[in-house]
C-alpha cells in the first residue's frame, strides 16, 4: 500500500498536484456559497434601510420647514 502511494520516486510531485487541485477547486466552489451569505445579509440590511428611509426623509423635510 505504501509502495503504491509512493509512486516510485515521483510521489511528491503527483500528490502535490492532486492536493493543489483539490484545494483550488474546493475554494472555487466554496467561495460562492460563502458569498451568498454576505449578499443575503447585505441585501436584507439594504431593504431594511430603504423601508425606513421613507420615514426619515419626511422627518428631514419637517425639520427644514421648522427652521
Amino acid at each position: 500500500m505504501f509502495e503504491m502511494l509512493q509512486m516510485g520516486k515521483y510521489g511528491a510531485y503527483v500528490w502535490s498536484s492532486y492536493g493543489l487541485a483539490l484545494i483550488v477547486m474546493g475554494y472555487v466552489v466554496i467561495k460562492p456559497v460563502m458569498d451568498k451569505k454576505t449578499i443575503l445579509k447585505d441585501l436584507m440590511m439594504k431593504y431594511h434601510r430603504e423601508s425606513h428611509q421613507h420615514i426619515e426623509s419626511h422627518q428631514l423635510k419637517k425639520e427644514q420647514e421648522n427652521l
Partner: protein
Amino acid sequence: MKAIMKWIYHLASPKHFYRIAGKLIPWFGWIAAILLIAGSIDGLFIAPVDYQQGDSYRIIFIHVPAAWMSMFIYMVMATSGAIALIWKIKLADVIASSSAPIGAAFTFLALVTGSIWGKPMWGAWWVWDARLTSELILLFLYLGYMALESAIEDPRSAARACAILAIVGVVNIPIIHYSVEWWNTLHQGATVTKLDKPSIHISMLIPLMLMAFGFKLYYVAAVLSRARNKVLITEQNSSWVKEVVALESGAKNV
C-alpha cells in the same frame, strides 16, 4: 423565429434563471463529484505505469483536463460576451463574468501542475517554450479581464467593456493550441486530441476522459452558483429578489 427568440429571452430572464439554476446545480455538482472521484482513483491507482515516465505521468489526469478547461472557459467567456453585446441578453454577461475566476483558477492549475510535471521530466520547473508561455499569457488575459471588471464602477458598463476585451483576447487561443506545431519545443504534441487515432493507451484514456467530463460538469455547477449570486446583486431592485431574499434569509433564521 420570433417565437424562438421570445422563448430564449424568457428562459434567460434573471428570475427564471435563478430558479432553474438552483435546481440544476445539485445534479451537476454530484455527477461531477462522482466522475472526479472515479477518475482520480482510476488514474492514481488502477491505470498502468507508463514505461517512459514512470508514475509521474499520473499528473496528466489533472494537468490536461485543467489545460483544456482553461481554454474552453475563455471561449465561453468570449462567446457569451458577444451574445450579450449583440442580443443584449443580460444573463450572458453574468455567465461571462462568473466564468472568469474559474477560468483563471484552471489556468493556474494547468501552469502549476505542468510545472510540477516539468521538474522530473525536463529537469527544470520552467522552460520558455511557446505553449507554456502562451498559457501564461492566458492567465494574464484572465487577470486583465478581472482587473478591468473591478476597475469600472458601473456594473453594466463593466460587463460590456469586458465583453470586448474577451473577444479581442480570443486571438491567443489558437496560438496556444497550435504553438506546439509552429515551434519545435519540449512540450508534448497532440497525443489525445489527434482525431483519427489517439496515441494513448485505452487504459489511460478512460480515467482521462472521466476527469475531463468531471471538470466540465464541475465548471457548470460552479459557474451557475456564481451566476446566481451575481443575478441577486444586479437585480437587487426588482421585487422578485426582495422576495427571494426574504424567503432565503428567513429560512435560515428559523
